[in-house]
């Protein structure tokens, strides 16, 4: 029998029931990012990075555009999940913790959307 008041029960014992989802998404994005990061580094090493035209031609190739889009989304999601854990581990003040968590989520969305916009602009432009 649980003698705790409903308020005490609500106030935070037990998990938020979102841990598995966090764990799983971090792993799925990791599996995606491993080959994609290698692909990006190797592709960029094969290009003359001082040649603007060459970069644009490379980015516009449909396969490269698609892979870049997937890479950006997976990387922003993975980065947000990772930094979230670091914040939860090291920031103990509730106010600071929640503020930083929201800020990191917001930054990840902004970075992701700006990148997607740029990739599409080069592809269509």
């Amino acid at each position, binding site marked *: 029998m649980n003698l705790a008041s409903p308020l005490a029960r609500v106030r935070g014992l037990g998990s938020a029931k979102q841990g598995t989802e966090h764990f799983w998404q971090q792993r799925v994005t990791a599996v995606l990012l491993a080959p994609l990061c290698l692909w990006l580094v190797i592709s960029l090493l094969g290009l003359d*990075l001082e040649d603007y035209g060459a970069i644009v031609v490379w980015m516009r190739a449909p396969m490269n555009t698609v892979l870049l889009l997937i890479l950006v989304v997976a990387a922003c999601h993975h*980065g947000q999940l990772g930094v979230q854990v670091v914040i939860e581990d090291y920031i103990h003040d509730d106010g600071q913790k929640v503020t930083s968590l929201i800020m990191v989520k917001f930054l990840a969305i902004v*970075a992701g959307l700006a*990148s997607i916009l*740029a990739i599409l602009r*080069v592809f269509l432009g």
Partner: protein
Amino acid sequence: MAGRAKSPLSPHLQIYKPQLTSVLSITHRGTGVLLALALLLLPYWLLSVAAGPEAYAVLLSHFSAWYGKLLLLGLLFSVYYHLCNGIRHLVWDLGLGLDLDTTYLTGYIVVFLSILMTLATCLWMRIS
């Protein structure tokens, strides 16, 4: 205080002797945070390409300066290290290689590989 001195203490990070396992673990976090910060530079690179040759030239001038090169070197090592050690983590998630000997062996492999890959990339950029 004399009475308290005998009560057990949990390992104190500043006193606890660093081990390969703990150092590699915190390096995974460190490189992860650095790469997350680099994600804020990713749209800068992509938007510069989208904005045209002039904007791209400005970006190039930053990344060919000493601080840009240093940053790229750090990011390159971080990508390789986080990638190699990340695969080590994924293998652990499968329940494999969790005994102490294998953990140390794979740890040394990760350090060796990520340094080797960084050096090879630098050498490649020098040549080409």
